[in-house]
């Protein structure tokens, strides 16, 4: 075990722990753009620099392992000055459009500029001018907003294993692109949206059907309703409508989702949802009340039980519904209707 001090707090951590991990252990928050605990630390963005007593320069907290007796300041004057300088430089090449940017309210760049009071850049000069890649139907890539933290690239390669995007060119024109700049639609991209979910700014954004600001929304943790992996996700809800989905760190998905979980949520609020019971009258399905629907069903069940027996009634339960729904359906069939003719689509 290694003993060190962070902002005056004594901390004891295991060997190999980074400064960032040690700080989070004592509740000291160090800002980051490019860090993700699931990725190999790469120290690209430099915003997490801290001051170490006796050190010659400011090391990045995300990549520097702690050592015995280390004394760290995370918000010293020099650290703050450096972070302000980094933010100033980032803003030098970032459009100032928080007024209408859909990421506003969830943008790490905005958060840190607020925290370190950077209103605008002090630099004048050339700015990026990339065409927005809108070829993918689920999300777009606006490189004018990219801060080159690289999280999208590494999530795509290290976690998703798709390797659809990478860094292109060098120096000022560096940007995130698909091979040969062919555009997302022509790439190997599988639209999982995991890059979109980790982007700290407004560079990779879902093409949402709804216009909303993050501060108008709430999130609800739930389980994905598609395949059996059981990914944990947060539904983004505005005014009783699901307007987006974010992956959560579930036991099986570890922060990943696929295209269906991330983007195929429109069915919930779809106008073609059934809203009233229907019953067939004169060959046509017509709207009816719950009471009448139950009565029609109950009469038919009772009549069949009396004339032929309960085993002439069968039910297919649903592998898409709740455990509780399934329990009650089989209980309905067994305890009330009186048959074991209950199955579901495990076979199909």
């Amino acid at each position, binding site marked *: 075990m290694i003993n060190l001090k962070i902002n005056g707090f004594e901390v004891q951590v295991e060997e190999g722990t980074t400064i960032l991990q040690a700080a989070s252990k004592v509740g000291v928050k160090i800002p980051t753009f490019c860090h993700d605990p699931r990725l190999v630390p790469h120290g690209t963005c430099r915003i997490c620099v801290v001051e170490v007593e006796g050190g010659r320069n400011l090391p990045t907290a995300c990549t520097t392992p702690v050592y015995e007796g280390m004394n760290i300041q995370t918000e010293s004057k020099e650290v703050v000055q450096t972070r302000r300088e980094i933010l100033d430089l980032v803003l030098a090449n970032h459009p100032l459009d928080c007024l209408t940017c859909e990421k506003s309210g969830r943008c790490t760049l905005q958060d840190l500029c607020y925290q370190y009071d950077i209103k605008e850049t002090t630099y004048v000069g050339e700015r990026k001018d990339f065409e927005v890649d809108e070829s993918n*139907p689920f999300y777009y890539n606006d490189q004018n907003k990219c801060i080159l933290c690289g999280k999208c690239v590494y999530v795509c390669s290290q976690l*998703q*294993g798709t390797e659809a995007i990478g860094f292109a060119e060098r120096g000022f024109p560096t940007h995130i692109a698909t091979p040969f700049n062919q555009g997302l639609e022509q790439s190997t991209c599988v639209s999982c949206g995991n890059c979109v979910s980790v982007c700290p700014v407004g560079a990779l954004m879902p093409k949402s059907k709804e216009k909303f600001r993050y501060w108008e929304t709430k999130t*609800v943790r739930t389980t994905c309703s598609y*395949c059996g992996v059981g990914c944990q996700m947060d539904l983004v809800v505005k005014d009783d409508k699901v307007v987006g989905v974010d992956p959560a760190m579930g036991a099986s998905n570890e922060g990943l989702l696929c295209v269906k979980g991330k983007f195929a949520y429109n069915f919930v609020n779809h106008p073609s949802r059934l809203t009233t019971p229907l019953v067939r009258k004169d060959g046509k399905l017509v709207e009816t009340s719950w009471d009448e629907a139950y009565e029609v069903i109950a009469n038919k069940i009772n009549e069949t039980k009396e004339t032929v027996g309960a085993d002439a009634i069968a039910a297919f339960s649903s592998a898409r519904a709740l455990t509780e729904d399934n329990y009650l359906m089989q209980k309905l069939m067994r305890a009330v209707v009186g048959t074991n003719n209950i199955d579901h689509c*495990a076979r199909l």
Partner: protein
Amino acid sequence: MTNSVAEIKDADAIFITGSNTTESHPVIGAKVKQAIKRGAKLVVADPREIELAKYADVFLQIKPGTSLALNNALAHVILEEGLEDRDYIESTTEDFEKFAIKVKEYTPEKAAEICGVSPEDIRKAARIYAEAGKASILYCMGITQHHNGTETVMSLSNLALMTGNIGKENAGINPLRGQNNVQGACDMGALPNVLTGYQPVANPQVIEKFEKAWGVKLNNKPGITIPEAMHGAEHGDIKVLYVFGENPMVSDPDTNHVKKALEKTFLIVQDLFLTETAELADVVLPAAAFAEKDGTFVNTERRVQRVRKAVDAPGEAKADWLIFMELMNVLGYSKKYKNAEEIFNEIREVTPQYVGISYARIEEVGIQWPCPTEEHPGTKFLHVGKPARGAGLFMAVDFAPSSEMNKADYPLTLTTGRNLYQYHTTTMTGKTDAINKKAGECYIEISPSLAANLKVEDGEMVKVISPRGEIKTKARVTDIVADNVVFIPFHYADGANVLTNGEELDKYVKIPGLKVTGVKIEKLA
């Protein structure tokens, strides 16, 4: 799954068979790729050259429906080369000798002939699987949806037993559940022969227990499965059919017969949308979607996880459990539940695997059953030390081809599956425009040489015919299928299941052999 999803990325070798993992279970597909990056070896056996085939150390492009022969040959090689785990076999298994004699017949050469692969590749695959310290088998409907599905699963379980890949981390036999809560539906006894927690209907003590718990007399005659119920409906034996959250008009084999059956019976459909099946119903009940109710799903690794209400259901739509409760009440059973949690607590009382799981405990992270007490952490992987039944039972199983194979009139073999974008019968995914932009319509994958023989171009409409019916669909020319194999995703109405056979069922669990259908293709004039 015997093991957990998160364990996959640390396996030494992975054998994927009958699962197009990156499309049907994309997040598990990502874990497989993570494992490969870490240095894991990969064997893939599939009729199609799926994405993961490109990552495989050995890819076995087998003919549809021949997995059992392949698995037996893998076992043959393992024994022949002495790669089996003798200690595990001797200490924890039964019937090994019978099994060893049986697989002796399945030389790699014989299996290679049946499966259409090279014997050397079979040997290589067997070595990769058996020599790995921790080898995981991932399989899906490509294994089970066959006339011999159960036996094919047994042949996989034999492989795991003989190499001691059971009861340890990062290994196991792992069926990937296709739907969010198949596991939960099975656990809850939405099956004709068992009550919750797989307690058999045929066991008088079980019946007695549930009669006491529910306060009613119970029927102890095991019920019938979906294919049998369809058959029964068509022949007038099933008078009332209650279909909840399913769309058999698209998902079940032989659509024309399904339609006849559904039209003949009194049909109740409970769903989110007016599906192809609901259109035939006598009564349709509007249900709440997953985002509109509280409850639980159980994932493929047996983890009970919370589902939470985020928005209100539209109009008069109701949570499914509430509909069932009200219907029970109308039918004279007066039990009432205030919420899903009350139901869950009743489930815990009658289901041994669930006793220790409560909503409070799964608030943050779900728990994997079995979980017998409130103090139990849940079970990450099964069969530690010894298989649950006491000893691992080897099963000597034989390969027999499907009756759909080798038909002179229908020389091509159709197999089915999913694509990445759509889910099941598209009732949910099909409501997102971008999804339909990617995969909005049905297609058939045919090989370039078959296309050339038929004089069909990529994108051209063709007629596909089986003894059950015919469809018109778009040809997608691709070399991921072999020359005499074609593939149609089963998502689309008037698609693959118009052609499939609903009669040839697995003799143990009555699963239809959806993955093998003899068809022929005609160019449209």
